[in-house]
């Protein structure tokens, strides 16, 4: 298979979901079953194609980057810049090929799952259309080789995310969440856009390769390394928004208002991982300082959201914060320089987190049906406090869920163990390379690993183990249909280590690590991060320690979870109401008060600003406009009419107009006099000035309106009458006969004869 064929296949994978979207959005009402089979089969076909692409890429073009470039716009010779053209195109390197497969797997399984989960939904067809739009946009992000197309697709995934979060827009909270997601991510995108513009301004190209080439040659934005760091961080802003990193992480938990399969696809596996993907794409241009910031942002995010996840009771909220936390992990991994580990974690996390969400979807579906059958509309189907003991009723869901939980907690023999371990080893290497305060990062990493194990097992225990609260309700709970359990099983299988590396305790020998190599930095040596050799060397030393530590913290976390929630040796409520923990618990339960903080500062600040503008508009601008209008009315009506409305006002007008008239008279006098000193001239001009003053005062008194009514209108009416008269005369000439008109035309020809002879 040649390179062209591969690129063509990639193009097909990219465009087919768009066709799917276009067909479904317009014709879903005409198609049988609202066209769900179309979207699902298209995505499975895309999955097959992407597997072919990945297989071929890894086996035949392992170290090559396949690219196709075409010129989109050619500006020719731009003044001050020279030849400029904008190239767009696609590339398939190993990262893109793997990402393509990941997106295809999750998207196709989510399509399948949705057939069951969204059954009888009012906007069933539209839902599948939007899924198609999302897949198209996501493939665009994955396959593009330039920042412009990346940005366009970036906004498109934002749009489809908005549409899908707001799928049940009748619910106020859903439409609010959609708006919040859209606006908050847009804040990050503004930064990304500025970053892109800085790069474009410097390099006059959008393609990654060309930018990196130029940087390698020592060409950096504005010749300043600070600007280079800034542009890297600005592009990272896009990732902060999209991947829900601190401080823009607030939208992702709210986005759980969307249908659960959507949460699995967009808000767990693919779109939020796009931020991480963006960082891997631009990794080569990140300076050491930028990477440091990225690492800290990731660590802070991982820590904050892990603490919040402990206190949440909504099954999807717990998973949402867990997602934010794991995304923080990936970002942190990239930031410390463990490039491959970060991307590896993205891949494995996509599988088990999508699985977790789909599993929770299965649970919610079962709970919802049971509650519905019991006519219970008050109990929350998503609250884990209402669950328990579902293990026997939903065995497939339970065992797969347990598999994912083991994976996310980092238990050996799972994919999560491999990837998490590599990240933690990376942080250890980072700590030992930088020393001092920077040990904070590995410490946070291990702490969060423990927290993750704890809250995930808390979730499993509360949901599936123990006794159900209501014995009648549990009778009504059933396992979900096969369209929902098959994706669960597939994803659970994919959470085993064997798919990524045959060595269960080390990923470095697996195909993934061979395929994804950390790119060489293109920034100047002085500001570059620690190079790959030294980093790998250090990483090698810390590997054993990392494994040991991560296993023990995970074990502790699981143990605490079981003691507290399964064996009930520790009473969680007692701990939560203990003096110190009381406030801490409240703090975590309320999500560190981020929403309240943003409400108080940014939202209220903008409201206050708007109020100030409104005051300015209402009072100052309207005042000027109304004042002008009032004075104009006064002038047209004249003082004569204002007597009726009040003496005082009229006298005021009278005085003002009298002064105005005198001023005009004075101006006329002085103007006419023009420096002439003779007495006669002075008297003459003075009289004329007086006349002007008297006339203008008279006009003001009777009002300009009177003048207008009598004289101007008189002239206008005269003209109108004259025109009417002329029209009556001209009417005689209009006989309606062709021959008469021809005669006139010939008369005109004769006139021309005389004119031009």
């Amino acid at each position, binding site marked *: 298979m040649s390179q062209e064929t591969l690129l063509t296949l990639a193009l097909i994978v990219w465009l087919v979901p768009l066709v799917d979207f276009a067909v479904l959005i317009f014709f879903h009402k005409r198609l049988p079953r609202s066209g769900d089979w179309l979207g699902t089969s298209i995505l499975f076909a895309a999955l097959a194609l992407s597997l072919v692409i990945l297989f071929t890429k890894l086996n035949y073009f392992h170290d090559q980057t396949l690219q196709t470039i075409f010129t989109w716009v050619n500006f020719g010779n731009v003044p001050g810049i020279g030849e400029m053209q904008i190239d767009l195109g696609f590339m398939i390197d190993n990262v893109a090929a793997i990402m393509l497969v990941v997106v295809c797997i999750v998207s196709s399984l989510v399509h399948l799952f949705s057939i069951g989960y969204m059954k009888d939904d009012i906007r069933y067809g539209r839902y599948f259309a939007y899924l198609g739009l999302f897949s198209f946009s996501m493939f665009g992000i994955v396959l593009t080789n330039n920042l412009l197309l990346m940005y366009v697709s970036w906004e498109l995934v934002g749009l489809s995310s908005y549409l899908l979060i707001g799928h049940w827009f009748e619910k106020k909270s859903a439409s609010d969440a959609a708006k919040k997601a859209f606006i908050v991510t847009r804040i990050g995108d503004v930064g990304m856009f500025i970053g892109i513009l800085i790069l474009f301004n410097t390099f006059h190209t959008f393609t990654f390769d060309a930018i990196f080439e130029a940087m390698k040659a020592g060409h950096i934005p504005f010749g300043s390394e600070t600007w280079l760091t800034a542009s890297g961080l600005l592009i990272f802003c896009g990732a902060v928004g999209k991947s829900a990193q601190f401080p823009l992480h607030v939208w992702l938990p709210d986005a759980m208002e969307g249908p659960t399969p959507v949460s699995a696809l967009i808000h767990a596996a693919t779109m939020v991982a796009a931020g991480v993907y963006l960082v891997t794409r631009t990794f080569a241009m990140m300076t050491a300082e930028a990477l440091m910031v990225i690492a800290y942002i990731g660590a802070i995010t991982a820590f904050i959201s892990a603490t919040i996840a402990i206190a949440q009771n909504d099954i999807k909220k717990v998973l949402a914060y867990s997602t934010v936390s794991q995304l923080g992990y990936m970002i942190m991994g990239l930031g410390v320089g463990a490039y491959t580990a970060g991307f590896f974690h993205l891949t494995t996390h996509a599988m088990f987190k999508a699985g977790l969400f789909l599993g929770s979807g299965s649970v919610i579906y079962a709970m919802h049906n049971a509650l519905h059958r019991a006519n219970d509309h008050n109990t929350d189907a998503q609250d884990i406090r209402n669950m328990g003991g579902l293990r026997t009723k939903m065995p497939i869901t339970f065992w797969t869920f347990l598999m994912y939980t083991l994976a996310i907690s980092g238990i050996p023999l799972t994919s999560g163990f491999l990837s998490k371990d590599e990240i933690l080893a990376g942080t250890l290497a980072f700590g030992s390379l930088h020393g001092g305060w920077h040990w904070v990062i590995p410490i946070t990493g291990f702490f969060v690993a423990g927290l993750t194990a704890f809250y995930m097992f808390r979730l499993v225990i509360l949901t599936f183990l123990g006794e159900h609260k209501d014995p009648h309700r549990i009778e009504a709970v059933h396992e979900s249909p096969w369209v929902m359990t098959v994706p669960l099983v597939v994803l659970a299988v994919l959470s085993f280590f064997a798919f990524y590396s045959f060595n269960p305790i080390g990923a470095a020998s697996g195909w993934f690590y061979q395929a994804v190599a950390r790119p060489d930095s293109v920034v100047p040596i002085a500001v570059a991060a620690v190079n790959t050799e030294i980093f790998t060397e250090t990483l090698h030393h810390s590997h054993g320690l990392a494994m040991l530590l991560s296993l023990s913290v995970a074990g502790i976390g699981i143990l605490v979870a079981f003691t507290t929630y399964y064996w009930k040796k520790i009473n969680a409520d007692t701990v939560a109401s203990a003096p110190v923990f009381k406030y801490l618990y409240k703090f975590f339960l309320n999500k560190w008060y981020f929403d309240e903080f943003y409400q108080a500062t940014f939202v209220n600040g903008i409201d206050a600003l708007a109020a100030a503008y409104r005051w300015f508009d209402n009072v100052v601008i309207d005042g000027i406009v109304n004042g002008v209008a009032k004075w104009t009315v006064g002038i047209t009506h004249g003082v004569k009419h204002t007597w009726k409305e009040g003496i005082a006002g009229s006298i005021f007008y009278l005085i003002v107009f009298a002064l105005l008239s005198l001023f005009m008279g004075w101006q006329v006098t002085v103007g006419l006099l023009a420096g002439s000193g003779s007495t006669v001239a002075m008297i003459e001009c003075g009289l004329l000035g007086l006349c002007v003053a008297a006339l203008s005062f008279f006009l003001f008194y009777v009002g300009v309106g009177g003048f207008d009514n009598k004289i101007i209108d008189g002239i206008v009416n005269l003209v109108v009458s004259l025109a009417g008269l002329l029209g009556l005369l001209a009417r005689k000439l209009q006989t309606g*006969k062709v*021959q*008469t008109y021809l*005669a006139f035309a*010939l*008369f005109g*020809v*004769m006139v021309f*004869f005389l004119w031009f*002879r």
Partner: protein
Amino acid sequence: MELYTIIFYFFTVITLGSTCIVVFSRNIVRAAFALLFAFFGVAGIYIFLLADFIAVTQLLIYVGGIMVLILFSVMLTSHQINVDAKTGVIQTLPAILISACIGGGLVWVFWITDWKVNSQLPIVETTAPKIGEMLLTKYLLPFEVASVILLVALIGAAMIARREKKV
């Protein structure tokens, strides 16, 4: 007086005389027949101008085609069966004024203008081959367009003139 001049005036008189009959006669059938002679006279004038092909075309198309058409429609649109169908005139006075002015103006312009006449007499030869060549080379596009127009006119005329069945 040369024979050439005499023949020229002969054709001129035929043309203008018949035209006068066309214009001033009240009998439409007579006018139509006079028009025939006017066309014939113009064909003679063409021969004087060494335009043999045009002259023949004039005879064929005008005399043979258009005249027949006109006569047909005269017959079809007259109330009476007899041939001396009268036809009225309108706005005579202004029309006389205008056409006199136009004719006078044209003659005056033709008279006073100093035409750059090519004094040498062109070689007298038959023009048909050359015209044919020009029609198929330099004037090919207009020629094709004209053929399409003729086809359209043919179909259109048949369409329009068809007597519609009253439902």
